[in-house]
């Protein structure tokens, strides 16, 4: 076989493999779309390409009086916005102190962050449940948001600190000579220059309440307080095959916007993670 033919064969094999991957990736996603268009509610009778497709499930989610879908959407957005905002504020404070100041306990603090970010919240869920119950924040969106904000600190403080470290110290010094204080450097130098990583933190924390179902499941009881992920999970957790098509419709309505955001920002997210990650 000539060198050229061998190269052609290789390229052909690569394309074949990529097409295979595209099918493996696309099939479950398209299948979900197909399910959501089936008029029935049972998984058993549902077809991949329904003969008489309909948008009845989508309509149900938005218009049926017994549907809490819009309420869940609203809850999720409230939690997401609060979580994104307060997470960025708190973590940038912590990261600034750890990046620019030398103080007693700094080294141990960094070790603690690196260690704590590996502990998932679920390891301490009994305590979280009991404590929220004690302070009367069980089954409330405020309680849920507080847990999210506190839990994200170790990972994100580390990420943002790593990014702050890459901003040259000469800039701070120049600003200090011009009369800027501790806060002046923070607000006028660090924050504007760290916008990319703060964007990553905001985005991650905005997404978290949409895709996490575990904490809401432990904390929230009343369907009026549910977030989207928990509400959708409850569609199918009890009567599995009964509401699957409705679950599919509801899922697509959150998966599509989230997927678009991720696809548009993936370069930004990955570079943020490697910038903070490899540094620290």
């Amino acid at each position, binding site marked *: 076989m000539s060198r050229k033919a061998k*190269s052609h064969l290789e*390229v052909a094999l*690569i*394309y074949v493999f*990529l097409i295979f*991957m595209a099918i*493996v990736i696309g099939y*479950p*996603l398209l*299948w979900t779309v197909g*399910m959501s268009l089936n008029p029935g509610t049972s*998984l058993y009778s549902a077809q*991949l390409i329904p003969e008489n497709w309909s948008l009845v499930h989508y309509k149900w989610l938005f218009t049926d009086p017994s549907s809490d879908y819009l309420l869940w959407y609203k809850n999720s957005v409230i939690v997401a916005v609060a979580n994104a905002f307060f997470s960025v504020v708190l973590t940038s*404070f*912590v990261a600034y*102190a750890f990046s*620019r100041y030398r*103080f007693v306990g700094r080294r141990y603090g960094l*070790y603690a962050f*690196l*260690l704590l970010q*590996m502990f998932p919240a*679920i*390891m*301490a*869920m*009994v*305590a979280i449940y*009991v*404590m929220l119950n*004690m302070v009367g924040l069980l089954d409330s969106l405020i309680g849920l948001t*507080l847990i999210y*904000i*506190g*839990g994200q600190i*170790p990972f994100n*403080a580390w990420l943002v600190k*790593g990014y702050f*470290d890459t901003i040259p110290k000469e800039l701070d010094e120049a600003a200090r000579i011009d009369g800027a204080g501790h806060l002046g450097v923070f607000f006028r130098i660090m924050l504007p220059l760290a916008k990319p990583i703060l964007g990553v933190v905001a985005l991650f924390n905005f997404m978290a309440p949409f*895709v*996490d*179902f*575990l904490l809401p499941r432990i904390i929230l009881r009343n369907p009026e307080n549910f977030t989207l*992920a928990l509400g959708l*999970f409850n569609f*199918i957790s009890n009567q599995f095959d009964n509401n*699957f098509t409705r*679950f599919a419709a509801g899922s697509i309505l*959150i*998966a599509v916007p*989230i*997927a678009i955001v991720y696809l548009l920002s*993936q*370069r930004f997210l*990955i570079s943020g993670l*490697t910038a903070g*990650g*490899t*540094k*620290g």
Partner: protein
Amino acid sequence: MSTVNPAAKKNHNPKLAVILSILLAGLGQLYNRRYIKGSLFILLEVSFILTLGEFLNYGIWGIMTLGTLQGVDHSIILLIYGFISIILIAFAIVLYVANVKDAKRDALRLQRGEKTPGFREAVKNVWDVGFPYFFVTPGLIMLAFIVILPLMFTVGLAFTDYSQSNQPPRNLLNWVGFDNFARLFFQTGGAGNNIWQDTFISVFTWTIVWTLVATTLQIALGLFLALIVNDPRIKFKRLIRTILILPWAVPAFVTILVFAAMFNDRFGAINTDILAIFNLSIPWLQDPFYTRIALIMIQTWLGFPFVFALFTGILQSISKDWYEAADVDGASRMQKFRSITLPHVLYATAPLLIMQYAGNFNNFNIIYLFNEGGPAVRGQNAGGTDILISWVYDLTFELNQYSMAAAITIILGLIVTGFAVFQFRRTRAFKEEGNI
């Protein structure tokens, strides 16, 4: 300098300042003629004792005894009060030590005859020295109560006898030492009595296999795809990359639940549409072996895009010069991959790859959402695909074996700490950190 300074007060005694400030925060400062600071410290200490003294006393008593009156004292609440007290006392001790150090420093200054700073200057000093602490405090308080306190509570719980048959407020809990761990590791008594040991061994081994196999597969697939898509002969790179990243972009809980439906034994698409062509039907959700296979395949599907995106970024940043130099030396493709590509890629991404292993080790979502850790297995109290963390969840919320769950959580924590230590060593930044 102090010998020539006429304002030096040789008779001012730093030791006395230290002793006074140990006796009562602020006394040393008063002795140092820092009257405003001294009164502030005294005010703080007195109000700390007045407002929290009783609570601390109660909390410490509570954590020592876990309550003494059955039906009145609630052991769990006492346990939490106890840990809150410990955290508050730790904060107080840190402040107290700072107060003593401050008294000593000021006394030495006074002895040397340095000018006592005026109020305005003193405030500025506090602001300068204390600034990082002020900035860290809000985050630290959140962290202390939302992350550290719950973890301490879990550790505490592991040494009590909190179980379904022994629950507050009806019963009091007791400290039982390492009994729960002994039960987990060694209890091999008569028939059916060694359920904990059996379950622990089987869950633990599957957790290790799961972590290694699923994570390695997702990294290998991600790397392979990044390499072939990066090949200069391949066209439509943007489109291909977008498609390959899709599984990462779609929320995982949705895809896992969709897969759970697709793998359904009786009417899932895998069995009815795909395997039916080959006249096959596999009990995906009934047989632990097949459930494990399905889980590993799904995790590979979910996990490879992130690795792919990560590696693609690194591959694009490797300088072409390396490869040209290797071509001149007549290196084969395999040699180039092993000596240039792989070291570059792994060096830049090692911490994130370790995080992938740690993530899968604690990947509760996929295990729980796919089949709730099932199918059930005879002779053990965990499902056939339960990993440690999902077993902990079951023990807590289904079986109410709180103390055993906490004991397993501690073991989990130790293993995770192992990952973290590994991470410390791999991380360049920490070596540099030492010199700053």
